């Protein structure tokens, strides 16, 4: 072999080796076998899910599905029922796109409820008779879960996780009990402290002072005692009949002073009910002072009709109302005003102001409680997944907006906040959202015996407001009664 040929062969071999080395260096690394097997298994799983979903969907082909839903609330919450019907259209269209022709009819019933005990009894009677709806709202979640009336939704929440990211995660926390998710958030309720601007004007307040009141409440400059003094002045001058109104039965707005004082009613770790005695004393002292000392709160609030309460505030006979954001919408839809009937929103902006609930002491932090309204899927539903999807689609931004604007509840979806119709009409809700995001706390009390404790608290609220017992006596009596009633399900803290 000549020298040239030898060099050529060596050159080719070296070239191949360099090429191979370069190729190895730049070539993408292969997947380790374990990882490959894991990926393959996940891929197979997804494939089988798609196959089973396709089969499930195929089984729906040309099917007629009827879903019944019972919704309830104030006179302006009817979109809780209407939106489910709209959701059915969305789901039908989605399925049609996938080639599944199915008709979904939602028989949605709405009731304006003031006696929630009667609403629950109606549902329980229907459940026991095998005639329960597929979707229900307005019942106690814990009780419903314990009784087996509703199903846990973790399976569907995990399945549709990506879709559900549009609902804030803290709302999902509020629908968890014993580690499982039991409801679908439908809207967000925020408590709001209302005041009559027109009455303040008659007291000699300037527009700047009136407009500064919410910020003074938020900074802790104005407390309950300050507002009580203002109310007393207004009553003494004959401008109002009463300084304060609160709700006529137990609700979150009555609990706010307790939370302001640092109290808790529920211990997340142990799952037990809690009474913080000092916070409870502060709460009952506040109501005692308002009713008996300042005499700006009627002693007969409990048991008064809702209509009388709303008419009192709407007609300017009451200066301050411990209400919720939804009342702004209710006053626009229900004829409470003796001349105007339904309030135009312009009237509300002109004459009614709102703020978070004031702090108990100067420099303290105000507070509002926020919490979701929930849809539940009843355990006897033949189509629980369809029902779940309807609950979710019912809060699609257009429908979420309709409900939020009409009822003045906060929207439940992130995407609704930027939805143009909501941006255009949601002025009040924006302002509420602003202080709710800063001062809002979520205080779900997820215990089956919460109802019994509320009854005891209500009983002594009546007695304290009537002056039959002092706040100290009330706290002692409540603790004794609660201990007898709840046993080891109660923690008492000093």
């Amino acid at each position, binding site marked *: 072999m000549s020298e040239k040929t030898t060099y050529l062969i060596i050159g080719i071999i070296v070239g191949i080796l360099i090429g191979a080395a370069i190729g190895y260096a730049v070539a993408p690394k292969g997947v380790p076998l374990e990882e490959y097997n894991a990926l393959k298994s996940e891929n197979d799983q997804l494939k089988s899910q798609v196959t089973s979903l396709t089969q499930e969907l195929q089984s729906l082909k040309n099917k007629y599905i009827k879903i019944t839903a019972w919704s309830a609330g104030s006179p302006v919450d009817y979109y809780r029922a209407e939106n489910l019907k709209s959701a059915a259209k969305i789901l039908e269209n989605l399925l049609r796109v996938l080639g599944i022709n199915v008709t979904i009819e939602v028989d949605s019933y709405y009731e304006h409820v003031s006696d929630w*005990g009667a609403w629950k009894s109606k549902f329980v009677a229907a459940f026991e008779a095998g005639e329960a709806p597929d979707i229900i709202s307005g019942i106690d979640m814990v009780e419903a879960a314990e*009784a087996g009336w509703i199903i846990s939704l973790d399976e569907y929440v995990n399945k549709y996780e990506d879709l559900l990211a549009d609902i804030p995660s803290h709302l999902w926390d509020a629908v968890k009990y014993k580690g499982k998710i039991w409801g679908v958030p439908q809207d967000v309720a925020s408590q709001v402290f209302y005041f009559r601007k027109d009455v303040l004007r008659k007291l000699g307040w300037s527009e700047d002072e009136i407009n500064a009141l919410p910020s003074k409440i938020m900074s802790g400059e104005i407390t309950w005692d300050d507002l009580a003094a203002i109310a007393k002045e207004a009553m003494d001058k004959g401008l109002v009949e009463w300084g304060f109104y609160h709700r006529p*039965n137990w609700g979150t707005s009555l609990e706010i002073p307790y939370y302001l004082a640092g109290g808790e009613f529920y211990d997340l770790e142990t799952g037990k009910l809690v009474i913080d005695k000092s916070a409870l004393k502060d709460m009952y002292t506040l109501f005692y002072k308002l009713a008996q000392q300042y005499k700006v709160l009627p002693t007969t609030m409990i048991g008064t009709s809702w209509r009388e309460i709303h008419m009192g505030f709407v007609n300017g006979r009451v200066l301050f109302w411990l209400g919720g954001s939804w009342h702004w919408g209710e006053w626009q839809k229900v004829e409470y005003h003796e001349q105007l009937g339904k309030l135009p929103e312009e009237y509300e902006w002109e004459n009614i102001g709102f703020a978070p609930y004031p702090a108990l002491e100067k420099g303290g932090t105000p507070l509002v409680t926020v919490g979701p309204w929930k849809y539940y899927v009843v355990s006897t539903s033949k189509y629980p997944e369809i029902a779940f999807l309807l609950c979710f689609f019912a809060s699609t931004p257009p429908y979420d907006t309709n409900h939020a604007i009409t009822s003045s509840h906060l929207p439940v979806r992130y995407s609704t906040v930027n939805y143009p119709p909501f941006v255009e009409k949601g002025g009040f809700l924006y302002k509420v959202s602003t202080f709710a995001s800063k001062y809002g706390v979520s205080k779900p009390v997820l215990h089956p015996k919460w*109802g019994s404790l*509320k*009854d005891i608290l209500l*009983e002594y609220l*009546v007695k304290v407001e009537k002056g039959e017992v002092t706040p100290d006596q009330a706290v002692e009596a409540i603790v004794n009664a609660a201990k007898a*009633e709840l046993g080891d399900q109660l923690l008492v803290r000093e």
Partner: protein
Amino acid sequence: MSNIFSFPPFFEKFVRKLKELKFKIPVRFLRKALPYIFILPFFGYIMLTWIAPVIITIVLSFTKTQWTITRMEFSGLENYFRIFTRDIFVFSALRVTVLYVSSVLMINAFFSLLLAILVTYFVRNESVAAAIRLAWLIPRITPAVIYALLWRWFIDPRIGLLNKMLSMFNLPAPHDWLLTAPYSQILMIVVNGYVGASFGMIIYSAAITSIPRELFYAASIDGASDLQVIRHIIVPLLKWPIFFVTVWQTLSLISSYEHILALWAGGAGVARAAGVEVWALYAYSRAFYSAEYGYGAALSVFLVIIGLVFIVIFFKIFGFERMMQPSKVEV
């Protein structure tokens, strides 16, 4: 032609058909069974609407049934022990029940006697008597919720008529009839008494009009005053109706709560704070507000026992055995 001692014609036909088919029918058996066959539908109705619920309630009272009625867990006498040892609300409910039953009974059993005497003995004009009877019957025929709503408007401190009327006569007009005892308790008694008085009035009116007129003529000839006629003729001859109305109303009042529930709606705490939570309402609250069906049933059974005790007491007081002797008048 059939008479009351023979079978109805269709039944005779039925028996003849069966004989043709050569069934050996014991006719005497059929004759005895016929009345029971006729009351069977009604007995079935009573079984379904009264006897079966009573049995179910008694069974429930021995269980720890909570949240849903289909999940029963036998617990023996635990519910009954709880009534007497652990429940701090039963004694106030018992106190209120004693006040309620004793006060309303005075109206339902005895004031109604005065009403009946008024409309049948004193008021001669039938139209006036009819108007008085109607005025007292209206609450009975009005649905409980409507009746409660009307009372709510009547006692309202702002717009209600009651306080205005009391002020006209310089009487105290409490600001709060609903939540302040004893006004709330007076309201409870009056509201229920106004409904219940009509029952006694009807029974007594019928009894008084059945008294032979000759007795009144004889008393009038003897120079008896109205009070003497009432005391010596009417009341003695109404002993059976008085016994019946007293027992019936007592048992009815022990278990009644619907008007109190309708008027003091708002949860168990409201009625309790107002001092009007009777035992029956407490049992209802336990069962349907707290979903403690077993315990609510035990509270209800306890009421039944109290009712039975009252029956025995009344039998003794009214001399039931003596009353079972043939009566002197058709009442």
